[in-house]
Structure formats: structure tokens, C-alpha cells
């Protein structure tokens, strides 16, 4: 698809993506692209994504798995000569693509991000055991067992080292005011969706 070089998509990004209003400030120096530890695995570098947004390449950007490669190392942020909050913009784009349902299906980081969020929202705190198991089984039971077996050594090691508690299966760490937290998060989501004109799901 050819670029339209119209502002529509840029405006959409500015309205809906965390720190999206910074995208227009990029001067295409490429320091972010060179600073990213997983750079070689990015189909499009951040600076290129900014250019694509300006060029109106909505679909190519939102369906890309590039931003899902962000490890949150913040190298790009501290080196950007224009002080763009690149890490946040990448997170914002990923989240926006995810909420729109355009992010690549089965993108592992996308899925794990969801699992992790659900895990913490449930009790207010991470339940590492449930989180790990959920990860192993995200691709179905069979794969789950394989994954679990593969990581068994580590699991046992961690348990021996008292850094993984089997008891977590039953409850485990939790906040007292779970209810409050749930309501709070729901409210926050509602407000954000209202602002972005998205329907909550």
C-alpha cells in the first residue's frame, strides 16, 4: 500500500497514543534505532515508525510486531536529541494496536503482557507461580507441559532457593482491598476509553 502523506493517522496517534503528540518532533537522526538492544529484531525502527505514521501508514504500523520488541531499557529515551519519550510512545502504540485488535495474533509479548496484567489485577500483586504456569500453558495444554518440563530444573531450583513457593497455588500474596483495586482499575479504564473514544471490552 502506498503512503497517503496526509495527517489523519498522525492526528489519530496524537489523540489516542500515550505521548503520541511527540511523534511529529522526530528529526530522523536514527539514534533510537541504533540504541535498541533488540534492534536487529525490529522490522521497523522507532524513528522509521515515526516516519511511517507521518506518511499515514496506519495498517503497517498498527499490525507491526516491532513495538512489541521493546525491553523498556530506556536507551532511546536518554539518547534522543529531541528528548522524545520513545519508550512510552512504543508502549502506547503497542497498547493502542492491542486495544484495536490489530496487533499481531499470538505475538508472545502481547499475550504475556495480557496474562501478567490479569494476574496482577486479580489480587493486586504478582503471583509468580500462577503467572509462570499461565505462560507455559498459554499455547494449550500439550505445549504447556513441554514448556513446564523444559523449565522444570529452574522451577525446582527456585523452590529449593525458596524463591518460588508452591503454596502460591492456593491464594498466595494478595492485597486486602482487592475490591477497591478492581473498581479503581475499571474506572481508570473507563475514563481512558472515554477519552480515546474506544468502547471498553
Amino acid at each position, binding site marked *: 500500500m*502506498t*503512503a*497517503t*502523506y*496526509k*495527517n489523519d493517522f*498522525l492526528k489519530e496517534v496524537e489523540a489516542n497514543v500515550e505521548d503520541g503528540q511527540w511523534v*511529529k*518532533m522526530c*528529526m*530522523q537522526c536514527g539514534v533510537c534505532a541504533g540504541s535498541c538492544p533488540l534492534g536487529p529484531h525490529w522490522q521497523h525502527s522507532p*524513528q*522509521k515508525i515515526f*516516519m*511511517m505514521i*507521518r*506518511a499515514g501508514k496506519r495498517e503497517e504500523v498498527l499490525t507491526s510486531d516491532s513495538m512489541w520488541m521493546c525491553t523498556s531499557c530506556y536507551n532511546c529515551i536518554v539518547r534522543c536529541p*529531541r528528548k522524545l519519550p520513545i519508550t512510552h510512545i512504543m508502549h502506547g502504540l503497542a497498547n493502542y494496536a492491542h486495544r484495536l485488535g490489530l496487533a499481531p495474533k499470538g505475538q508472545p509479548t502481547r499475550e504475556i503482557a495480557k496474562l501478567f496484567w490479569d494476574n496482577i489485577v486479580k489480587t493486586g500483586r504478582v503471583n509468580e507461580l500462577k503467572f509462570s504456569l499461565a505462560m507455559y500453558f498459554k499455547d494449550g495444554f500439550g505445549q504447556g507441559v513441554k514448556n513446564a518440563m523444559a523449565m522444570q530444573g529452574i522451577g525446582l531450583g527456585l523452590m529449593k532457593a525458596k524463591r518460588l513457593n508452591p503454596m502460591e497455588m492456593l491464594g498466595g500474596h494478595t492485597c486486602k482491598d482487592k475490591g477497591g483495586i478492581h473498581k479503581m482499575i475499571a474506572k481508570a479504564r473507563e475514563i481512558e476509553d472515554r477519552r480515546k473514544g474506544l468502547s471498553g471490552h
Partner: protein
Amino acid sequence: MADIKYAAYICSGCGIGDKLDVDALEKVATKEGKMAVVKSHPFLCSTEGVDLIKNDIANDGVTHVMIAACSRRAKAEAFTFPDNAVSRANLREGVIWVVAEGSEHDEVRQEMAEDYIRMGCAEIKKMTQPAGNPNKAQSKRIMVVGGGMSGMTAALAAADAGYEVVLIEKTAKLGGFASNLLKRVPFNAPYAEAQPTGVEELASKVSGHAKIKVHLNSTLSETAGAPGRFIAKIAQESGAIAEETVGAIVQATGFTPYDINKLTELGGGQANVVDQAGLEALAKAANSGAIKRADGKEVKSVVFVQCAGQRGSGGNGNGQHLEYCSGHCCATSIKQATYFKDANPDVDTIVMYLDLRVPGMGEDFYRSAQEKGVIFTKAKVNGVSGGLSGEMSCKVNFKDLILDEEATVDADLVVLATGQVANAGVNLDEWTATVTAAESGDAAAVQRKSELQKISVLNLNYRQGPDVPQFKYGFADSHFICFPYETRRTGIYAAGPARRPMDMFQAMEDATGAAMKAIQAVENATHGRAAHPRAWDLSFPKARLEGCTQCKRCTVECPFGAIDEDERRFPLFNEERCRRCGTCMGACPVRVISFENYSCDTVGMQIKAVNVPDEFEEKPRVLILACENDAYPALDMAGIQRLTYSAFVRAIPVRCLGSANTIWITDALNQGYDGVMMMGCKKGDDYQCHFVKGSEMAYYRMSKIDDTLKQLGLEPERVQTHEVAITDNARVARMIDEYVAQLTELGPSPMKGFG
């Protein structure tokens, strides 16, 4: 010439006394140099030493002073005696610091020193202290040609410094190109928003200024004379001719935008493709409302194409238009893009650039446009099409160099950032060719000549042509990095885009600088002094016309067009135009041109004064004629760094290698010198010569000397011309030793003993 008294003062300090036999030097000065007074002092540059000289001048009638001490480049302040001619024999940097240590060199070292004493004495006998140009020019008025931002700024700058100004503007009102602008690029912090041009304020200041006289609807039909006494004939609308006498000229004739119609590949000439000037007109018409196209359609999308027909093929050009970058266009397009965004943020505004060139604080202006939503795309524009009929929008085909793909964008309007073409008048190379052809009766040339006279800005009645020489691409710029105002016409200074492509801020600064130089020129002219680079030199060329053969070499070769012809076709020197380089002196085959303190004799007698040993002594003698600005300092600094070179050379500084007369070479060879080295500045396109053509001329003349050498039965190697840079300290020392070795190979000059 009432009672002249020559005196020699020899310093024995800085180790001179240890390395040389000063008594012997004194004897040389007395016996051979025939100096009436000869004194030596252990610390001549000390107050005491200088007082010794002053006292002899005051009480002992000493009129001419020969100082044998350090280089003329050292202690100049101490050894300046305003009313007395002074020559310097360089015993320190020129002898003891460069001749190898050790007693085995004592003899040659002493011989070298004694020769420099002889030379100093010989030179001073031919020098008189210049008194300045007797017929001093009178006018201190400044004429400014061009009433745009540059011209008005120059006029105001000079007037506020107390100088009367005459301003000539060819149109009916002041303001020039700037009056067509809606706003200007910001001049000061925070560099965020376009600013009012301020052109009206400036115009009213100028027209209201007591010291500024404005001629509107006027052009120059003739400019005659020289700094301090230019006579300008001003052709007015009425057809009447006004005459003004002025002392100096600032040429601020601005630029013309490159013809957009030539840029057909970028849609030039099509209805909805405009240049930056065109856009300013649309923006003004919109008067801060939505910007509309010529056909009245509101512009919802606009594309700016940078470097349109500029930067050869380097920009969005195809190599068929302008080679250079006009500098201002990036910032100007940024400014124009914000016209759209300020009126309506929803207008799609794209700037397509190859290198965005907004130096200095322009970076902040760039940021502010980005904040307003202007999109910048690094792109090579292949073509612009459509936009022919009013309704149709343009298609811009380009390669997005970041996304690395061909793309097309529709736009209601396309703005081409075209370049600045200088209004600098006639190209003198074409002029000379045309005139020569015309004189040989070529009808077309005659026709062309009258056309050129119409194009001319100044219509100078100089023999060398009607305008200031152009440097490159038609701009009347200086070739010198350290001296941006050095046009080759004394007292005439180009400013603004006529000098070099530039933005408004630079143009106004440039105009102020040019006014400064103009003021300086009138001050110098009215004091009978030389202008840069021999600033305040009071000597000036004199010609014994009775000996002149009317060969015209001086008039042709003068780099500054200072010499015209009188009605009897004799050279007519305009001292106020002269820069004192002596190129005319070097050119003159009959040696009738000279300066009071620099002449064929001041140098010739030095050459003759040198004691040339006979062929059996195996002591070759090499004459070095070194440019005083680059080669001679290099020799000096070789000494300061204690590099050594052969004691067989005798160096004489010359004002410019262009002033070297071939007689000096033939005299030297006749006298038995084994070789001559001429050291001048770089020639060619990137010439270094501060007198423009000096070293070029020297090379040319020396290329002709071979026949003379043959007649004398001498090998061509005996005369060499070198380019020497001021940093060549080590190289020059090496060159000397290699040449002396080469000459030893060659054997002594067969001329020895015949001299």
C-alpha cells in the same frame, strides 16, 4: 633633496654578537655601505637603544636609518620612525638562527651577514620616506546603490556614524524584495515565530534621515573617478541626469529569484506551482485568513520542494540549473509552512528536503514548525505534474529516502524553493571579450556591448570594465576568507545577496559591514593612504611618462583597475584606487614605475650590492625574491624554529611577486648569481595572493624568461618559481638546500666574472 644623512645601527644582542664579527660588519657598513654614522648596540630594541637612534635623528641630522638586527617582522613598533626612511638587515632570523652551528660555518655565516649589511645600505640609499598622495581626494559621502533591506541598512548605518549618504533606487519606492514578504524569519530568541519584516519602519527612517539623500526611479549612467572623488551620473525617470560627488560606494543591488518557468520538471509554469515569492503574495492576499490559490480554491494541502533547481544535482535539481545553495530557503519554507498552520492547523503541510539547512538558532525555528504539525520528509522529488487547470490538484512524485520507496502525494499547491540570482551587473570576462571583438569591428559584439552597458549597475568608466569583478556564479564576492569585503575595486563594496546568497539577517549585518568598509575607504582616500591589505601605506606609484612606451601592460595587469589611459594614451594612475602592490612596476618593461620606498632600484641595488664570489670559491650565490606576506614569514619562522638552510642564499622580501621586474632576474644572472628562487603565493582558482594576480603574473613572466636565459647561455634551472605557503617553514628550508645542491651539481654560472 636637502642634506641626506645615512646611518647604520647594528644590534649585537640575541646572540648576534656571539655568532658574528660585529666590528667587521661595522666596517662593511662604513666602507662599502658608505654610511655616515655607524653604531652598534648590545640591545638595540631597548628604550636606550631606540633613544640612541632618535637622538641621532634629532640632533645629528640623520635622515635615513639602516637597522641591522632582527627581522622586519620583529620589534616593528620599536623601530618605527615616522619621518625617516628605514631599511632592515635581517641578521637574526635571516642569518644566525638559520645558518648551521659550528665554527666550520663561521666564514659563510659572516659573509651572509655582511651581504645583508651591504643590501640594507644599498636599499636605504634608494628609499625616501613617503609623504602620502599630495592631491588628496575630498568627498566623504557614501553612495549606496539599491534601496532594499541591505541598501537601506547600509545607508542608515553610515548616516548614524555621521557620514552623508546618497541612496540610489531604481524603482519608485524603498523596500526592495522584502516589501513583498508577509513576514520574515525570526532574528532573535526564542526563534519560534515569524516576525514582521520591519521594512516600512526602515524605509521611513531612511527617507526621514537628515544625512540621507534618496534618488528614486534612478540608475547610474556613469560612475567616474576614484575613492574620495567618484562622480556619479544619475539617470532619473524624467530623463534628466543628476550628478553627485561621493567618496565610496556600497553596491546592494540584491537578487532575482531563479526563473521558476525554467523548472518545468518540477511543474514550474503550471498554475498551482509557485515559488517562494509567489507564496508570499498568496499569503499576503489571505491577510491571516485561509490561504487561497490563484483560482480562489482554499489550500488544504501544500508541499514545499526544497533546493528546487539548486545544488546542481545534489538537491532537488537535475544539474541544469543553479550549482549552489541559496542558504535562506530552508528557513524561508519553514516560515511559509507556518503561514498555513497558523491560519488552519488542519492543512496538510509537507516540506520535502534533502538536507534541512537551518544553522545556528534556526534549529529552534525548525522545532517550532514541527510543533505546529509541519511534516518534514527527506525526499528526492522526481517530478511535479498536474495543477494546470484551476481545479486540478498537483501530483508530487518523489522518493521517500527514509522509507526507501517511491511515492506520490496530491497537493492543492506546490511551492518550489528556488534560488537567488545575484544582481551584480556585467561579467567582466564577457565584457573584455566583447569589447575586444567590437574593436575589431564585429557587429554582433558592438550590439552586445551596448546591451551589457544597459545591464551594468555602476557603469564605471574604468578601463577594465563597468562593474566590479564577479567571483563565482555571478556574485560580486571576495575571494578571501579573512577579508570578506575585498572586492577588486577599491572603495566599492558589495553587500547582501549581490555579494553572496544570504538571508535577511545576514544581509543586514553584511550591509553594516560594507558601510564600515566604505567609511574606511573615504577616510583613507582623504588622507592619501592606501586601503587594505597595505592599509595606511603612504607610498603610491609614480611613472616617468617620458620613458613610457605605451605598451599598456600596467593598465591591463593592475588587479584593481586603478590605471586608466589619458587622452594621449599614457597610463593614468588613480592613486586612490591603488593598493600599492607594485604589479604595474613588475609589469613595466622600461621600468618607469616606482614607489618612493619601493622601486626597481631599491631591490636592484640590493642585488648588485651582494658580493658574488668567483667560480673557484665554490660558493654559489642564490637570490631569493620572497612575497613579504607568506614566503618571507615562512623563512622567518624557519629561523624562529631554528631550522637551518644554506648560507649561500640572499633573501629579499617583495610586496608581491607580481611586483618583481624581470630586470632583477637578468641583473642577478649577469652578475654571476648561480640561481634565482622566486617564492610567491598559491595561484589558480584557490589563489592565495592578496593582490589577486601577483603570483600568477610572476609565473607568466618567468615562463617567458627562458629565451633570455638561452641568450645568456644559461640552463633554465637557474631560475625557479615556487608556491610557498606561510606554514611552509620546514619545506622552504628543505627547498633551499635541495636547490643549492642541484646548483652545485650544475656547476657555477658561466656568467661569473662577466658581471
